[in-house]
Each structure stands twice: as structure tokens, then as C-alpha cells.
């Protein structure tokens, strides 16, 4: 990576990358935009986070998320219950937006990361890796689990006066999944991956 010419993503200033130490980052001297971040063992670490994340993802979608007890009646929900209820309540657009940002985008993020990186670790390049990796970059921004967590907090304080709320296993898995997904993103050295899967000029 050292000595390569890169254009700043934010201000287009050409920079010659110097030696970046492990765990260090190079920033644009003009606008302070991030040019390159070097993560030690990037591919191994990212695979580890994404695999762990995928397991937590399954747990957080299969098991009960939140339950509510009111006058002896227990309502049990999963992560997707709200989406289903919105569809039935004739709000398909809102349902689709929530489905995409809290379930599909995180799932795609984790699986597409593994799709590109697992073969790469064995020195192979999966079919359509370049396309998948480009799409991965676009999808990351639409995964909003941490915002959903704040939404849970707000709705629970609204409900706590009228009912008992019982957090389920899926909620704990979901809370653990948030930093794991963030770590999957930050441990990935896109520059390194592009240099391996990219075509040659």
C-alpha cells in the first residue's frame, strides 16, 4: 500500500500514501478525510466478527424479542412482529423500510462480507466478488440496528406504566450484535481486499 497514489474521497487532493503502521490511519492533510486505515490481520478478524455476528443474528431473529404481560395476558413478539403488524395495518412502505434497515441490511452485510472474504482467505476469488463488494459498501449505511435499540428504549418507557415488559433472549443477542456488526465494518481493510480481488490495469 505504501507509496500508492490515492485521491482524497472528500476533496480530491492527490496524496502519496506513506508507511502506515498497524492500527494506524492516514488522513488527508487538507480536509482531514480518512484516506486509509490499516488493521492488523484484517481478513481473519473480519471473518471472525462476521461469523459471530451471523450466529447472533439467527438467535435475535428466531427467539422471543420482547414480551408484555398485562392482566394475565402475555404477548410475545419477535424482531419481525412489528414488520408483520405494519403490513397487516396497510403500511407496506413503512414495513418494508423497517424490514430492510433492521433485518435485511444487517444480514446482507454479514453474508456478503463472508462471501467475499472466506474464499479470499484460501487464495480464491468467489464469482462476482467485485460486484458483491461494491454492493456491500452501499448496503452498510442502511443497517440501523443501533437506532432501533434507541427506539426500543423509547417505546418501553412509554409502555412501562401500563404493562410488565419481559426482555427475551433475542433482545440480548440483538444488543450484542450491534458492536459485532460495527467491528465487522471497522476491521475490514477495503483497500487490501480491492488489491486482491480487483482487476489489473
Amino acid at each position, binding site marked *: 500500500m505504501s507509496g500508492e497514489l490515492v485521491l482524497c474521497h472528500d476533496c480530491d487532493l492527490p496524496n502519496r500514501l506513506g508507511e502506515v503502521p498497524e492500527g494506524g490511519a492516514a488522513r488527508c492533510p487538507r480536509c482531514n*478525510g480518512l484516506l486509509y486505515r490499516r488493521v492488523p490481520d484484517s481478513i481473519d478478524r473480519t471473518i471472525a466478527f462476521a461469523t459471530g455476528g451471523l450466529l447472533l443474528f439467527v438467535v435475535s431473529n428466531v427467539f422471543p424479542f420482547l414480551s408484555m404481560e398485562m392482566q394475565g395476558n402475555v404477548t410475545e413478539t419477535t424482531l419481525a412482529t412489528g414488520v408483520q403488524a405494519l403490513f397487516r395495518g396497510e403500511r407496506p412502505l413503512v414495513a418494508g423500510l*423497517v424490514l430492510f434497515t433492521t433485518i435485511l441490511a444487517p444480514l446482507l452485510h454479514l453474508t456478503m462480507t463472508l462471501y467475499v472474504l472466506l474464499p479470499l482467505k484460501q487464495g480464491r476469488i468467489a464469482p462476482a466478488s467485485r460486484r458483491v463488494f461494491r454492493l456491500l459498501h452501499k448496503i452498510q449505511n442502511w443497517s440501523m440496528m443501533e*437506532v432501533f435499540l434507541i427506539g426500543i428504549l423509547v417505546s418501553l*418507557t*412509554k409502555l412501562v406504566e401500563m404493562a410488565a415488559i419481559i426482555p427475551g433472549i433475542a433482545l440480548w443477542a440483538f444488543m450484542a450484535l450491534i458492536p459485532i456488526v460495527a467491528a465487522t465494518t471497522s476491521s475490514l481493510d477495503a483497500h487490501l481486499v480491492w488489491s486482491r480481488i480487483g482487476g489489473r490495469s
Partner: protein
Amino acid sequence: MTAGTALAGCHECHLALRLPHLADGGVALCPRCGAPVHRRKVNSIARTWALLIAALVFYVPANLFPVMTVISLGKAQSDTIMSGVIYLLLHGMWPLAIVVFAASVVVPLAKLVALTYLLVSVQIGSRSRPADRTRIYRITEAVGRWSMVDIYVVTILVALVNLGNLATIEAGLGAVFFGAVVVLTMFAAESFDPRLIWDRAELNDV
């Protein structure tokens, strides 16, 4: 800087390359990642304006229509974005009220204002404080997602308050418009090209 030999950074994989001469309507593809390469995002200003204006238009019904309606014992009570914040305040939950107010009122408004300011400053050819304007852009891009909080609150309440005869909660039309505002402003921020800020500023150096 002639068009034929200009350095261009690929939007997708950030490879620096020299753009070849292109025939009219021709597109250069990045040799590394295969994405179409342009020196600047295509029609950045027009696209950002279009998405921004659409978001501004939707912002009005997003705040006027209720985001949810609670029907309990035959009585219906509707909440807009603002009345939801006031509810939290009146019930003494002011830390939460601040969070919701910031996410649902301040963030969308600040995004609309910031993008308008960035577009106008680029179009009148402003050369002042490009580094600060770039920072405004980065913040705008980063905070947009937090406006989704209200949509999620409605989703969770709709899921949980499913108590047969006691109460039902419906997502209102306001939620649809508000969701549209969040999505449109996220696309608007994505279509704005911060390098346009520097194109004018660079003329100082020449």
C-alpha cells in the same frame, strides 16, 4: 486540467486513475472494481436538489399527520411527531424527550438546512472555509440515520400493544411521509459530491 488526462478517483473503490479520452456518451469503467468512473458524481447538484426538494415537500405532511393512533375503549388518540415529544416531557421523561426531539426534529431540519447551504455555496462559487463545509457534509451524512427512531418506536408499539379488545395501535400517514423524508435526505446526502466544494477553492492556488 484538461479533461482527457485528468486524475479521477473511483467513487466505489477509490482507485486513482487517469481518465482516457471518451467519445460522446462513452463511459470509463474502473479497471479495478468495474464501476463507472467520473471525475465528479454525475449531475450531483441537480440530483441533490431534486431529492432535497422532495424531502422538503414531504416534511410538511410528515409533521402534520399523526405518526400513530391509539384506539382504546372506543376512543382514538392520535400522536404527531411533536405531540409525541410533548407527551414524554409532560410525563417527566425529559432525557428521553431530548433524545426523541434531537432525532426526530433537530436532525431532519438540520439536514435539510445543511444540504441547502452546501448546494447554494457550491452554486454561487463560494471559496470560504472549504474544510469546515466538508466537515458539515460528513456530519450530515453520518447523523441522518438517527431520524429513524420515531419509525421504530411506532413499529415496536404496534407489535407489542396487540391486546385484543383493550387497545390497538395503528401507524399513521405521518409515519409514511416521515420515513420518506429520512430515505430521501439520505439519498440526497449520498448524491452530493463534497469535491465540488473544493473545485472553486482550488482556483485560489492557481
